[in-house]
């Protein structure tokens, strides 16, 4: 499996649906039938914005999320990519 590279562009997998919840969102992958928890509203917004940026870093810049928190967001994104919820474009 390729490791997550924040200099590359990613987007939400076509077969993943997000459902808003008080804590953020539930994500369901119709292909591998797995469920994921996006556990912060900012993470949900970030994930949804990935497709319109040419790298994850640019998505961070545009998100308004404090740069000190980027590492924890990156960990979440890497985990989402590892389970095929995010795909490199």
């Amino acid at each position, binding site marked *: 499996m390729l490791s997550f590279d924040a200099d590359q562009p990613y987007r939400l997998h076509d077969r993943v*649906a997000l*459902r*808003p*919840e*008080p*804590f*953020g969102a*539930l994500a*369901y992958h*119709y292909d591998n*039938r*797995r*469920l*994921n*928890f*996006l*556990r*912060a509203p900012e*993470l949900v917004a970030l994930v949804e914005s990935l497709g319109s940026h040419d790298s994850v870093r640019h998505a961070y810049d545009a998100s308004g999320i404090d740069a000190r*928190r980027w590492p*924890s*967001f990156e*960990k*979440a994104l890497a*985990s*989402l990519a590892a*389970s095929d919820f995010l795909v490199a474009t």
Partner: protein
Amino acid sequence: MTALDIPIVAKPDDLVLSAVKQSGLGDQMKRGLDAPICLTWELTYACNLQCVHCLSSSGRRDPHELSTAEAEAVIDELERMQVFYINIGGGEPTIRPDFWHLVEYAVDHGVGVKFSTNGSQIDAAVAQKLAGMDYVDVQISIDGADAATNDHVRGRGSFDTAVAAMGHLRDAGFGEFKISVVMTRHNISQVDEFKAMADHYGAQLRLTRFRPSGRGADSWAELHPTDSQQKDLYHWLLAHPDVLTGDSFFHLSALGAPLPGLNLCGAGRVVCLIDPLGDVYACPFVLHDEFRAGTVRDPGGFQAVWQTSELFAELREPQSAGACASCGHYDACQGGCMAAKFFTGIPLDGPDPECVLGHGETLVEAADAATRPDVGTDHSRTKVTLGSKPR
């Protein structure tokens, strides 16, 4: 660490949410979600089998079951609520004449389907059709690794039927379907054989807890696992984290390290059941008026029941540890299964009847027939007893 460092990958039908407890997401789950994660929908009480442990006492179709149009309206609503995925069961759902129509209707509306079946309708042609369908998963029920053990509970010929269906699914290239086994005193020693069976058919094994629900109340004393069997199963499950359990053995977590899963009762919080009449219950194992939250036939439909029923609001409140408050293991087992307590006549804030520390046994013995609730509506065709070959 921030609250989002571990997105949890899970199979919604099985709530394998391993890091949930530590991360505090469990508390959010207890307060309930905007829509269920895991919704079981029993399409009919009609069944060509009459298993002795059937949690819905199925057999005969009920004349008031939802019509095709009503079922479609429920699916429309689930689509709007973004319920990603439903577990269809029964009775035997495939004998409902509009079964395939409803499966296709659900899938076309973005609601994935897993259906549970005894396999009787899964011939080579149906298996081919299933293999070509996206968003559809199949679960074959079996309760013994050999015909004698299985048929004692599920009826004569049911082992061969289930195994034939497994063969058809494998031959059709369906992929990883599920084999589901209810753990009883008679089959719990066969777990390795069930695992080998699943591997042989390219399937995933799912083991669930036997509850004293429906007809299970009558056979519970004879079929529920012994203490030493429960301990063996706990260690086996720890050694086989890839085996699904529907998070149903969380009462065993009091034995040591927690089993993978939510380790809490999801009833009315992340789980519920719609019965063939459209009645909504807190979980699949409590088909009883006491746990009926409402009906999809009311004007507000399913969404109103899920979001505003008094029963569900109560279940989402912090629960009292009651008699278990002084036990050091309460955090691990959460007092066990509500349905198991209810149908054995134990107060809901008392210990699980199969409490691994033995706190439940005396209460079960003390609860006489008068204090036990009735088992709810019975749709059996004939009187069903263990080994009576109900066909």
